[in-house]
């Protein structure tokens, strides 16, 4: 499956958002996720089925003004 994660293309075999995050070593309670412009709550990642060409954003806290 071809997925765009934080702007980078990945060819990866996974079926859910949680599997994708584990495969790419994204781990932490401070992460927020969105798929195709929609928020996906942490509790929903296990059941969130990914589709070819989905766009995934994985954000974390950063300094800001």
């Amino acid at each position: 499956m071809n997925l765009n994660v934080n702007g980078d293309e990945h060819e990866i075999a996974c079926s859910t958002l949680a599997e994708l995050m584990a495969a790419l070593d994204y781990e932490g309670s401070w992460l927020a996720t969105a798929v195709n412009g929609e928020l996906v709550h942490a509790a929903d990642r296990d059941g969130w089925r990914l589709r070819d060409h989905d766009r995934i954003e994985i954000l974390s806290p950063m300094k800001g003004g």
Partner: protein
Amino acid sequence: MLQVYDTEITSRLLLGTAGYPSPTVLSDAVRASETQIITVSLRRETAGGKAGGAFFELIRELGTKILPNTAGCHTTKEAVLTAKMACEVFKTNWIKLEVIGNHDTLQPDVFALVEAARILSNEGFEVFPYTTDDLVVAERLLEAGCRVLMPWCAPIGSAMGPQNLSALRSMRAHFPDVPLIVDAGIGRPSHATTVMELGFDAVLLNTAVAGAGNPAVMASGFAKAIEAGRLAFEAGMLEPRDMAVPSTPVIGKAVFS
């Protein structure tokens, strides 16, 4: 004491967390400022990266309220999604709403800002909108559900200080009961004192502190300047006069010739 939404704060300085030379310097500046509210943002995490986690721990240890921003967003959709993701991470319904409309000045896109403010307010967010000093936009933001306004006094990071005192005075006069926080453009403590003397309720700083030679000392200086301006406003200041007025009584003055 200042009330923003349902939270009472005693410090009238809100401090940004960007641009400090090191995490230690940031922590020292936050503590020296005695701020109760710091601003943060969200950015893409790298695969396998733990940078966000380290920063998350740092800000939690500071013990202040956290005000996430939507910095860098250029559309209503981006800002609304970022606000929701910030809520997920920081467990707060506060959001410093920024929708940038101009790359050079970082001037807000006030049309998208109002739209985003309405959406987020309807979804239960307590919105702190970064706006201009335009009264009509301010009215629209209040109608959209905002109960705090954060006008700029100059472009973000410019350090130019208040560029339109007349507009700021008008804003204060038109919205006497709305908390007004000057959000951007402050460069020096004297700038902060000036807007506080006008009756603004608080000041949000970042670059002026982070970019100082000694951020912690500057943070302390700003805290004092903001308090001085507030005290002056509460005390009531003299209006300037065209002519000199002797301060020492004239009556009873000796006549030597």
